[in-house]
């Protein structure tokens, strides 16, 4: 117990960053991805490639199909057309659980925490798949149970400390303030060791200073975990500041792709947001 009492500093240890095969393949490739929901083509011809450590933004007016894209990537919906390649692997026929095991973790637009669980248990629940002990050792509290539980306890605390949340580890997640709940969702997603992190409107409902804090957090996560990030966001200052590339959706179609500067001056984007010039 005592040897684990090292000071918790937000420095990534080897244990925190899983060894990944650094293949040349991009994290994510979508080819002609599309889905028809109730006769409406919600997303069509979605072609996007995300590099290994890229931060990409997905923007567009309300109802453009941004969250639908996330739901397609995580297989909440099965796509009707097209292919999703994750780390070069075809995810055809995968379900949500398999997609997560293959490396995609996400947050939700309307926060979906395990409200009755403590903050640290929310994170530990996400580490479920890396624990190997069986039910018998849990019931009898055998050494394998104690060892693995202790290990993930410390790993969960370290992850929480990156977001300055280690002090509220035993508080129930539902009683956290709004901003902290959003951060906890990101921590929980990171706990599954993803290679691609999907953030669905992480700054929604935040005030400007919270948004700045969030921006720092996202940068920190990106640097420490070397994870690719796609974020859906309406806060343009956040998107333009943080994203290396941006993809604009309108009515389920990509209307523009490029760097933040390209997007800001793109007439099609301006039209989608502000309407046609008369």
């Amino acid at each position, binding site marked *: *117990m005592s040897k684990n009492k090292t000071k918790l500093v937000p420095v990534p240890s080897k244990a925190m960053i899983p060894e990944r095969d650094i293949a040349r393949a991009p994290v994510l490739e979508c080819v002609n991805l599309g889905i028809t929901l109730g006769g409406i083509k919600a997303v069509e011809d979605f072609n996007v490639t995300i590099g290994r450590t890229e931060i990409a933004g997905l923007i567009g007016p309300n109802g453009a199909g941004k969250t639908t894209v996330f739901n397609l990537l*995580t297989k*909440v919906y099965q796509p009707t057309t097209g292919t999703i390649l994750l780390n070069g692997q075809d995810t055809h026929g995968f*379900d*949500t*659980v398999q997609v*997560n*095991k293959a490396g995609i*973790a*996400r947050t*939700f637009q309307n926060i*979906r*925490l*395990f*409200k*009755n*669980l403590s903050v640290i*248990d*929310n994170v*530990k*629940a*996400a580490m*479920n*798949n890396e*624990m190997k*002990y069986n*039910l018998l050792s*849990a*019931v*009898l*509290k055998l050494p394998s*149970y104690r060892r693995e*539980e202790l290990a993930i306890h410390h790993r969960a605390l370290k992850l929480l400390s990156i977001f300055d949340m280690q002090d509220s580890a*035993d508080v129930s997640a539902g009683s956290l303030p709004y901003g902290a709940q959003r951060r906890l969702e990101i921590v*929980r*997603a990171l*706990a*599954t060791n993803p290679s691609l992190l999907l953030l669905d409107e992480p700054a929604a409902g935040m005030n400007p200073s919270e948004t700045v804090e969030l921006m720092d957090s996202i940068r920190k996560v990106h640097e420490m975990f070397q994870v690719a990030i796609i974020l859906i966001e309406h806060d343009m200052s956040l998107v333009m500041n943080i994203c290396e590339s941006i993809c604009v959706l309108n009515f389920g179609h990509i209307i523009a792709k490029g760097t933040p500067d390209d997007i800001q001056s793109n007439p099609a984007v301006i039209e989608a947001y502000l309407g046609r010039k008369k």
Partner: protein
Amino acid sequence: MALKKFISLKRSENRKVFITYIAVIAAFIICQGLSMAGLLSSSMQGMLVPICAYMVMAISLNLVVGVSGELSLGHAGFMSVGAFSGVAAAIIMQNFITYAPLRLALAMIIGALFASIAGFLIGVPVLRLKGDYLAIVTLAFGEIIKSILNNFFLGIDQNGLHMSMLKDTTNLAEGGRLIIRGPMGINGITKISTFIAGFILVMIALIIVFNLVNSRLGRALMAIRDDRIAAESIGLDVTKSKMTAFVISAALAGAAGCLFAMNYFTIEARKFDFNMSILILVFVVLGGQGNFLGSMIAAAALTILPEKLREFADYRMLLYAVILIMAMLISNNDEIKYFFRKLNPFRNKQEAE
């Protein structure tokens, strides 16, 4: 040091577990003392074993309803599977295992085994459903189990076991014994259930359930209960987790059923009907979903209450219903909850604020 770690009461969950163990052991010592001193009436003494069985049923159902968050209305079905298979096993073993506690323990293990098989078979279709649909289908399966056992015949002679459905066509040889007689159930059971055995079963059930709730399975179950979509998004296998909980719950119910049945001379499938399932659900709801100590107290209180109300003769069940309604209202009253929380010496200050 080891002890200190064992009783690390810092976290409220650990505290709850600790208090529950202490309360159960204290209640056992008091009851055992009273009964040895002859201060317990014979009707109370007769209720000790059923109370233990109901407590285990409450613990077992609370794992499904409170922790897993699925409403199961067929729990008496698993209890009856455990009761019939356990008692039949005990009768078969009667001749070569003469030591009663060992026979009881083996019978309970066999009862638990058969009930867990039933739990698995029922879990496969049932756990694909959600919410109300799941509740109704478990209700139906509870009734199916009852009907099957009501028409099941099992006999033993020198050639081994014989079984038949609907009609007694076992054609036992001379000297054979018909153990399960369809609607007549099993009679001529040697009463080998004891209060001590009941207490041990309650403790085992508590240890199993508490340790599971504090393990990866418990976290996964509660995560799925709170938000299924988010749980899937972090890679939790919903069906597998729920199935594990369901099977463990069925096994505990089976052991409880065996304990329950071994306390009577005869046992019939009719006894484990829908009313019994609802009664167990009432223990869980009254005691608090996910609150194991509470549901055990509710089980004890609601078993003793009808007996104590006997003096009111015809008005007995009316009074029982009124008291039940009052108890539900009072236990859901925030002010009263707050009052009791203030009395709790172990409460943590943050929580009180």
